[in-house]
């Protein structure tokens, strides 16, 4: 398949518009987001100079918002690569318009997952000790290895399908030619190149799935490997992975809705995409509820005092507002909206997704904090209230994430141009062939 660039400009020109034209909205968002980021940088400098005393952390609540953010952001990262890889492998044709926006989430958000754990360190200046004295016995080292592998794999997985689009930009955009020439790696769109590319994408898609699963499993192991009440649970691995995919899909739906609105891509990100992702979100919503139910009912029924102390602090104690808000936002609201096909519209799925995103942050928070506040030796009771520093750094993480995402959309097409084109030219025929093979009478 040779890409005729003139045709691209005719049909899919709108996909390149964000790169070629820049409006007032862009500069306004950059200014707003950048000022939040600056505030966060100021907060971090303060923390770096004074120590973690500027947070609300104490003994026994040694971990708080930063670790919550770490788990949350790493969870969001499952949006991308995993969803897009599964959809590619399953040959789901509706994936074409959404894979790129998902993969970008993964790559960018991973930096904030890692970033938050670095912000949480008392001695970030000694980070190199992880390499010098790294000890494989510690689950933190498993995270270190797993997340860096995932980051590498997802960057490659984002970059590979980007190459043909970069080549289009190199040949047509006229802007930043040097950048696109280097990144296009001499792509000409020959049949041979395309074959190699598709093979590479297929390999990466398969490779990325076990890595993604391992990432959130070892993140959960940070907690589950200790013997602390309500952390020491075998269900944590799958529970965290399910929650990660759940929040990942939600983040993807929100991102897609914004892209659709701002770049006027109604024709590419259609009702069907939101509906299908909405169904996936519904499945994960039920799975999340199932895991949560299993986790809490066993603790409740077993009624061991140390575990029950944590449970009670979530059910009726000081963390009850967080816990019940989590149940409503993670299950009740999305379930009601998504289970009904009439409310599973674009607006509906977006509301459900915002709800899930809030709920999943709270879920991570109610896993990390109540256990620490109720330790086994019940004589240490700290009160944990996050300070403005923690709030600013959290807001800054979100703001910088959105900012980098916006910048990406200004440099590269956020909907894969060549894949849309391939779908139009090859996909339709391929699917027809495929369906024929499912039917009786056709050759195997």
């Amino acid at each position, binding site marked *: 398949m040779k890409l005729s660039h003139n045709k691209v400009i005719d049909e899919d020109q709108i996909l390149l518009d964000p790169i070629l034209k820049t409006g007032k909205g862009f500069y306004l968002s950059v200014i707003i987001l950048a000022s939040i980021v600056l505030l966060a940088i100021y907060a971090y400098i303060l923390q770096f100079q*004074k*120590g*973690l*005393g500027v947070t*609300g*952390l*104490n*003994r*026994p*609540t*040694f*971990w708080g918002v930063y670790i919550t953010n770490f788990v949350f952001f790493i969870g969001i990262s499952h949006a991308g690569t995993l969803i897009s890889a599964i959809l590619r492998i399953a040959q789901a044709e509706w994936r074409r318009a959404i894979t790129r926006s998902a993969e970008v989430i993964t790559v960018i958000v991973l930096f904030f997952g890692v970033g938050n*754990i670095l912000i*949480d*360190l*008392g*001695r*970030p200046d*000694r*980070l190199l*000790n*992880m390499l*010098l*004295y*790294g*000890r494989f*016995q*510690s*689950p*933190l*080292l498993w995270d*270190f290895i797993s997340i860096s592998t995932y980051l590498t794999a997802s960057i490659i997985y984002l970059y590979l399908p980007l190459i043909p689009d970069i080549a289009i930009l190199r040949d047509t955009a006229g802007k930043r030619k040097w950048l696109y020439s280097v990144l296009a790696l001499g792509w000409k769109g020959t049949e041979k190149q395309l074959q190699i590319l598709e093979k590479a994408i297929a390999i990466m898609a398969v490779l990325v799935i076990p890595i993604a699963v391992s990432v959130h499993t070892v993140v959960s192991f*940070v907690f589950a*490997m*200790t*013997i*602390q009440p309500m952390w020491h649970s075998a269900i944590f691995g799958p529970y965290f992975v399910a929650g990660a995919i759940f929040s990942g899909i939600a983040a993807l739906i929100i991102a897609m809705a914004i892209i659709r609105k701002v770049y006027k891509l109604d024709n590419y990100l259609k009702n069907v995409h939101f509906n299908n992702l909405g169904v996936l979100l519904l499945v994960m919503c039920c799975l999340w509820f199932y895991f949560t139910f299993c986790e809490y009912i066993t603790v409740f029924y077993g009624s061991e005092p140390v575990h029950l102390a944590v449970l009670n602090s979530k059910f009726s104690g000081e963390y009850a507002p967080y816990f019940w808000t989590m149940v409503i936002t993670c299950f009740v609201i999305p379930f009601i909206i998504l289970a009904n096909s009439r409310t599973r519209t674009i607006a509906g799925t977006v509301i459900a997704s915002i709800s899930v995103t809030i709920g999943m942050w709270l879920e991570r928070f109610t896993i990390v904090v109540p256990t*620490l506040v109720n*330790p*086994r*030796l019940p*004589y*240490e*009771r*700290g*009160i944990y209230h996050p300070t403005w520093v923690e709030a600013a750094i959290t807001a800054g993480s979100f703001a910088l994430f959105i900012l980098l995402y916006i910048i990406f959309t200004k440099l590269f097409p956020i909907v894969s141009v060549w894949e849309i084109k391939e779908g139009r030219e090859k996909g339709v025929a391929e699917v027809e062939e495929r369906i024929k093979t499912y039917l009786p009478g056709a050759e195997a």
Partner: protein
Amino acid sequence: MPKWGMVIDLDKCTACQACVVACQAENNIPLAGPNQTFMGRSIHWMELISHIEGEYPHTKIKLIPRPCFHCDNPPCIKVCPVRATYKSEEEGIVGQIFPRCIGCRYCTTACPYTVRYFNWEKPEWPEMMKNLLNPDVSVRPKGVVEKCSFCYHRLVKLREKAKAEGKDFSPDEYVPACVQTCPSQAMFFGDLSDPNSRVSILARSNRAFRIMEELGTEPKVIYLAEGE
């Protein structure tokens, strides 16, 4: 190979907190001040914990001096990503390497007894106390974890002294500051691997118990329960 352990006789303990004060002075533990203490950030390698049973007016309060238990199977050292905390093979003491600790506070969350402390800010002392710091114990920087060391520096010093004098090191000479100070002689320290040592004999008493023994952490601090 000695296995250092401590026995605390709760029958003899008067809860005077002399052990707490001795520890603060011996180990250069910074003063937290009222605000930080209220937030739960004060550091006490040795702390008196109050265990309250029953409802008023039939309450029973137990006051228990609590150092680090120097578990033989410590959950804290397993999770350290940089081996900044370790159990010394020769002594069985759980130590902390301050210059290496990256301050991730994984050990503090993994310890079921919550006996590890973090330096939330740069430790500071009032001007008049600055000259009173113990030169044998390093002052910790901000952002690292610290904990009771069974006054390990005393052991090192005694060993060196014995070597310099050409004598054999006698385990009886080594006592942590808390044990040395205890006015009611409720605390004992010694080698648990020697079946005839004072601590070993006391550890076999009917009154002997260890806190949360069921976790399998094998604490090396043994309590003697109060009699009727």
